[in-house]
């Protein structure tokens, strides 16, 4: 019971903070719009310019940030629980770099880019899924199947290969496309229109609902393979299915947000420290923490420089990497 109160308190505080951040985020940018103007907009009065900027640019961007943060966090959480490794993250499975290659191919090969804009997230998703399949295939061994550590190491190795292929492609890009790709790789939220959100929402909802319906199964992973097996849970199959859902979530997120790492790594660890190992609580908290972190990083990035925005991925990595090392030191 106390845990439930604790969770509620955390969620309320986080949501309040996010509201503040959202207001700041809405205000900052090339055109600054004060909170009173936003109030005017909400009740239907306001200039056309500010209406356009808020409803067509900044609001979709905040929505994408929140959704992507949530999705990446629970994807990372599922990966950590199923592999029983607090160091796992979807970005270690080659998802970011796989999607990155697809984006580069799009920029290098597709001529009429504006007409084919929906092709871009689709290709990114395809690249992410394909690279994950490769990582799984290379880490499969006949006698032991897929062990979590081998999976991570293979992902690290393939990510190295992908990034060298990307450099090859880089040299073929025009300077403008190069800027876009560099921003993409560094993790800048670019898919900021309602059309993208509508297109990607079904994936998010299906995968999220599926993962939340499996919280009990996720709990059994904590008991270790042997105990779970004796409880009648087919761990191998559940693991593959759950990782599959996590990969789709992360792939979809990355396809509209660019290569953001570390969110899925740090938030589940934080959530576990706060609320413990029960997944029905842990998943909610890490998801909301994910939204919060990404929104904070985006807001800070906008505040630092309004003309050349610093991609969120960079800020997340600067905070995330040291925290990661901290977790590493604590893990036995």
């Amino acid at each position, binding site marked *: 019971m106390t845990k439930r109160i604790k969770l509620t308190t955390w969620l309320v505080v986080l949501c309040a903070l996010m509201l503040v951040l959202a207001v700041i985020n809405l205000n900052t940018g090339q055109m600054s719009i004060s909170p009173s103007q936003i109030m005017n907009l909400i009740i239907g009065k306001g200039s056309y310019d500010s209406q356009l900027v808020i409803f067509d640019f900044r609001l979709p961007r905040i929505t994408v940030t929140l959704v992507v943060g949530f999705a990446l966090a629970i994807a990372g959480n599922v990966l950590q629980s199923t592999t029983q490794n607090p160091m796992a993250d979807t970005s270690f499975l080659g998802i970011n770099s796989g999607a990155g290659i697809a984006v580069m191919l799009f920029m290098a090969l597709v001529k009429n880019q504006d007409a084919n804009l929906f092709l871009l997230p689709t290709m990114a998703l395809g690249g992410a899924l394909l690279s994950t399949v490769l990582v799984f295939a290379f880490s499969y061994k006949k006698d032991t199947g897929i062990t979590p550590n*081998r999976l*991570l190491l293979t992902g*690290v190795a393939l990510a190295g*290969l992908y990034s*060298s292929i990307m450099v090859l492609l*880089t040299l073929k890009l025009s300077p403008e496309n190069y800027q876009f790709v560099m921003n993409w790789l560094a993790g800048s939220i670019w898919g900021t229109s309602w059309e993208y959100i509508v297109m990607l929402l079904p994936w998010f909802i299906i995968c999220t609902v599926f993962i939340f319906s499996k919280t009990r199964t996720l709990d059994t992973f904590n008991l270790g393979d042997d105990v779970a097996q004796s409880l009648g849970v087919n761990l191998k199959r559940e693991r593959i299915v759950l990782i599959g859902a996590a990969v789709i979530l992360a792939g979809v997120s990355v396809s509209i947000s660019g290569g953001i*790492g570390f969110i899925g790594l740090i938030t589940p660890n934080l959530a576990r420290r706060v609320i413990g190992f029960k997944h029905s609580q842990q998943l909610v908290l890490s998801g909301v923490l994910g939204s919060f972190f990404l929104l904070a990083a985006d807001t800070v990035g906008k505040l630092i420089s309004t003309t050349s925005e610093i991609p969120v991925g*960079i800020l997340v990595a600067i905070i995330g990497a040291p925290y*990661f*090392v901290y977790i590493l030191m604590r893990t036995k």
Partner: protein
Amino acid sequence: MNRRVKFSLQVIVGLVILAMLLLLSVRYGANQNSDATVFNSFFHYDSSNVDQRIIRDIRLPRVIGAMLIGAALAVSGGLMQSVTKNPMADSGLLGINAGAAFMLTLCFTFFPKMSTLNTTVFSVIGAGIAASLVFSISSMKKSQMSPTMLVLSGMAISAFFTAISEGIALVAHLKQDLAFWHFGGVSAVSWAQLYRLGPWIIIGLIAVMFMASNLNLLTLSDDTIKSLGKNTMAIRLISLICVVVLSGISVSLVGAVAFVGLIIPHIAKFLVGTNNKKVIPMTIILGADLTVLADLIARTINPPNETPFGIIISLVGVPFFIYLARKDSSQI
């Protein structure tokens, strides 16, 4: 006696291969030369002949540069594998190259006119920062760190430095050339650089050779070393300094090339056993062989364009890494 003969034979074969590769490298490239031109440029040098000048002033320094860098990266990888007792160690994978690249990005952004010698000093400092981070993380943990954990912490450190470098590059609008440089090419190595930096690499390599018998100690378990009354702290510290100098200089010359330090020491151990007195010379020769060959391929695969030679090495290195990850599942 038999073993010694075998070892001498292996060294001779390695050196002969190196000599042949050097000749081929001098001869082939965007500009093909005849044997006579090559011969003449060495023995009857005529400075008015363009072909001969290309050989002397462009090809020769880059080939010698490739050779030195290959040896330096391979040896520093081998050293790190001994010090961390970790078969997956490599200056690229552990974030040391990223640390050096980070400092170089700072130099390029804030002091674009800095001399090569000074940028090298900064690059070595960057390598030092990253190396001390990795080593303090792995030694502060009370229990032995598993190879997977070390690679993952290297990933995090690498991601951290890369994120900051990317952020700076984006805000400062650094050019596309930097991407090429990030993945390495020896095309820009000049005599002037070699005169200044070559001696340091050679001193580093000789220092490591003298340490060989001490490095053998590190293969023993910590308890055994203690009971022998030896203190390995000094050996570790000197090794660390050698790693930093060798990889820092290499990165400043050719960019962040990974995997040389991973592959070569393993091949050397496979050929000559585990005694470092034999392993280190072999590592030096094989490292030089690999980079000279990779550079030759990089120049001739798509003339007159150059492929970054780091890519050629990743193409060999990634499968090798995956092989290591699959081979010893009990350990990893």
